[in-house]
């Protein structure tokens, strides 16, 4: 009898929390549901390396411009924002301190532009593995990233 009552209470609590979560997304751990990272992927590191690049598209569905100011990952000793740019006739990868997320717009992280570098990977990822990271925005909120490892 008590088990059944507990189950009903549990279900009710779950319903209330779900509705609250839908109505007030920022109430759940200061995560920004209106800004999402999708299609995230990473390369398998080269045999002699413990680093790799993460690519993705970050969409800002809000009416406010935001900036990505840092990135972190439990999978690596260091995570950094980088950009490929042209320097005279040469291409170069350099660390950047931020990436713009225009209002109702997006930021693309791909092999020809911005990307995230992960240095000192703690384990060697294989094709199909997932690497997680967290983007931190200028307003203190965070965006989770789940990247699939590809060849």
């Amino acid at each position: 009898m008590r088990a059944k009552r507990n189950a009903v209470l549990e279900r009710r609590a779950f319903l209330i929390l779900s509705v609250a979560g839908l109505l007030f997304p920022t109430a759940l751990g200061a995560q920004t549901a209106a800004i999402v990272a999708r299609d995230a992927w990473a390369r398998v590191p080269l045999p002699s390396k413990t680093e790799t690049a993460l690519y993705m598209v970050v969409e800002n569905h809000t009416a406010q411009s935001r900036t990505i100011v840092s990135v972190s990952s439990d999978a690596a000793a260091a995570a950094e924002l980088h950009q490929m740019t042209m320097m005279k006739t040469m291409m170069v990868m350099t660390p950047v301190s931020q990436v713009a997320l225009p209002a109702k717009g997006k930021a693309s992280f791909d092999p020809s532009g911005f990307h995230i570098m992960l240095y000192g990977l703690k384990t060697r990822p294989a094709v199909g593995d997932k690497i997680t990271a967290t983007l931190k925005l200028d307003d203190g909120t965070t965006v989770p990233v789940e990247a699939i490892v590809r060849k």
Partner: protein
Amino acid sequence: MRAWIVALLALASLGCQRAQLPVLSVGGDFALTDYNNQRFELSSLRGKAVLIFFGYTSCPDVCPTTLSKLSSVYKRLGKDAPRVKTLYITVDPDRDTPAVMKADLGSFDLDALGLTGTKPEIDKVVALYGASYEIIPTPQSAEKYTVAHSTTVYALDPAGRTRVLFPYDATVDQIVEGLRSILVSST
């Protein structure tokens, strides 16, 4: 009658193709160390078409992208694949030792020989081919420095002369076509 005209036109256009690839002023023979720690001389590749490009293995995007593109080129070359040799010359000899290059280039599906050497030796080849690179310290990064480098792929004919310069955004089709022209004009 029409078949003859078509055949004649095809032959004529082939002849035109041979005249169309100029011998470029950049390039020339050089000697470096390959990723088996053996002395390598470009002149040893006479008789094959050669693709040369400069990069470094800690390069996360440009170099893997070029290597993947060249893998696709080799697949498309089919029976002509053994007639083309690819050389990957590092502009980061401090980190790109023969062992590192051998391990990393081995993970790509193409017959690319890694070449390294002393800084003066590499600088000589870079100058010969009109390429460029620059080591840039990055104190704000976990990596001590980054390397800016030109991204041209140089295509040499079987006599060792530079005939085509492929820019970074050259497609697999364009590179295959360029190589076929080089191979056709040498037979």
